């Protein structure tokens, strides 16, 4: 974890409202693991002070890149920034994915929207190839199909409107694939919370392990503010908490520190919003 003011190398539109931003960070780039994120302060923002978290998409030499979607003031301001302008970055942050081992479990990656960013770095770093399921509402939400293919992965595309790949939800081909076989397979997912929840349920139904990268609002990004918590199962040990604090056998853990990647079976979905 380092803090640096970094220069933008390039910042280009990918499709529609998705952009790719490359920054130069010689000291940070080598430290990055798949599933980790960068906490970015958008310096030109006017009266919005907080940093914004983005998964790290690619690492190349002394640069890393993010793949972002414009959704609000921060991302919209980033989208207007140009090469040479500066951002403040704290990275790498968080507990990332367990990188599949050669000859180990076959990774099935499930990615929705900007979730493809984190999945790409995982695929790239994984010596064990597998299948990647990418889904989105429309064709423009499918972001790095060619890049996954170039890595030699089997890419299954779905769009809700059928404008690209199969029509439907990303979980449909995933279920089909798991019906074929679950043996030695492990799920990795990043995307909208609804999708993660569905993948969590599928993992449970098919009894396959799954690692999910959770998307919670963040403030500090480093574990001090307790903004980004999600309910995680806890062993009901000899804790001295008052009874109502122990109900349900879970505690809040930090997405920015214990996560963003959690094992699906640890998450207490009933308690999440």
């Amino acid at each position: 974890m380092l803090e640096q003011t970094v220069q933008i190398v390039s910042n280009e539109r990918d499709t529609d409202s998705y952009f790719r931003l490359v920054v130069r960070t010689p000291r940070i780039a080598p430290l990055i693991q798949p599933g980790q994120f960068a906490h970015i302060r958008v310096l030109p923002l006017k009266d919005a002070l907080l940093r914004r978290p983005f998964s790290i998409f690619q690492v190349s030499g002394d640069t890393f890149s993010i793949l972002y979607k414009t959704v609000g003031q921060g991302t919209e301001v980033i989208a207007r920034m140009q090469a040479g302008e500066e951002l403040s970055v704290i990275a790498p942050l968080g507990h990332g994915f367990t990188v599949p081992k050669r000859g180990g479990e076959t990774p099935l990656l499930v990615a929705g929207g900007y979730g493809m960013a984190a999945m790409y770095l995982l695929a790239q770093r994984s010596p064990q190839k597998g299948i990647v399921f990418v889904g989105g509402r429309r064709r423009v939400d499918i972001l790095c199909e060619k890049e996954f293919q170039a890595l030699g992965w089997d890419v299954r595309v779905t769009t809700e409107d059928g404008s690209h790949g199969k029509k439907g939800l990303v979980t449909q081909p995933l279920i089909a694939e798991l019906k074929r076989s679950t043996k030695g397979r492990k799920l990795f997912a990043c995307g909208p919370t609804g999708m993660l929840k569905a993948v969590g349920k599928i993992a449970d139904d098919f009894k396959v392990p799954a690692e999910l990268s959770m998307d919670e609002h963040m403030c500090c990004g480093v574990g001090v503010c307790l903004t980004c918590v999600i309910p995680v199962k806890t062993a009901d040990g000899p804790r001295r908490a008052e009874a109502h604090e122990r109900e349900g056998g879970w505690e809040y853990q930090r997405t920015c520190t214990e996560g963003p990647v959690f094992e699906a079976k640890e998450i207490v979905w009933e308690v999440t919003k």
Partner: protein
Amino acid sequence: MNLSVQIGKLTLQNPVMVASGTFGYGVEYAQLLDLNQLGAVVVKGIRLHPVRGNPTPRTAEVTSGMLNAIGLQGPGVDGFIKKYWPFLKKLKVPAIINIWGKTVDEYAEVARRFDALGGVGALELNVSCPNIKEGGAQFGTDVKRLKQVVAACRKITELPLITKLSPNVVSIAPYALAAEEAGSDALAVTNSYPAMAIDIETRKPKLANGTGGLTGPCIKPIAIKLVWEAAKVVKIPIIGMGGIQNAADAIEFMMAGATAVAVGTANFYEPQTTLQVIAGLREFMQQHGLKDVREITGSVQTAK
């Protein structure tokens, strides 16, 4: 050039500390800055038992600030001592423990535990969390109960006691005086301000808790006034906080009457803020030929 200040019997190497709840238990920021440069490290509020805290969303960004309703999530005294104290006790700078309870007895019990622990720099009594019914507002906006809490802790421990006051009062003077009279060694002014934000698309409050505490640069002018008012009535030192982003802000608090300052929300977006404040303070002293940082405290020239 002297930067050191006194908070009761505690000597700080400089007047710049962090605000409780914005710096975790210190260890989290250790990779990003040298904690031993600070005046003190103040930890997140701790009660006797572990606390789960509020549902999410717990924070929201607002104009030049933020709202929070964390609900004082924490590991409890035992959890804290086990998990975080080994790191904190090795620091060269004092660790100040922010404590709270749902009853006067609980405050006293937590104080007793930290007194017994040994090596604690000071206790900060949080009687002003806007996100907790019992333990927060009920003590912070009631002079009598405030006095009871402070007096109960005073009886238990000789550790320096800092009473953290609520800004949500008509006048802070009676609360400041009450804390002083009950034996507090210092005041922390101020906690976050009760506030709310609504997402107009979902029609829901931006915080799951409905309301929360406003902090950051937006509240600085309110906090400056509270420090100034408190400083007029008490003799004990005041730790000023609320929106400090840079040395100029810190100096403004000190001129208003603060002996020390704490950086809160700014840590989240700029973890180096404390170090920048310390450097800027030195520079200001140099430029203005000040030999002792204490010359700044209360130096505002007001007609009244």
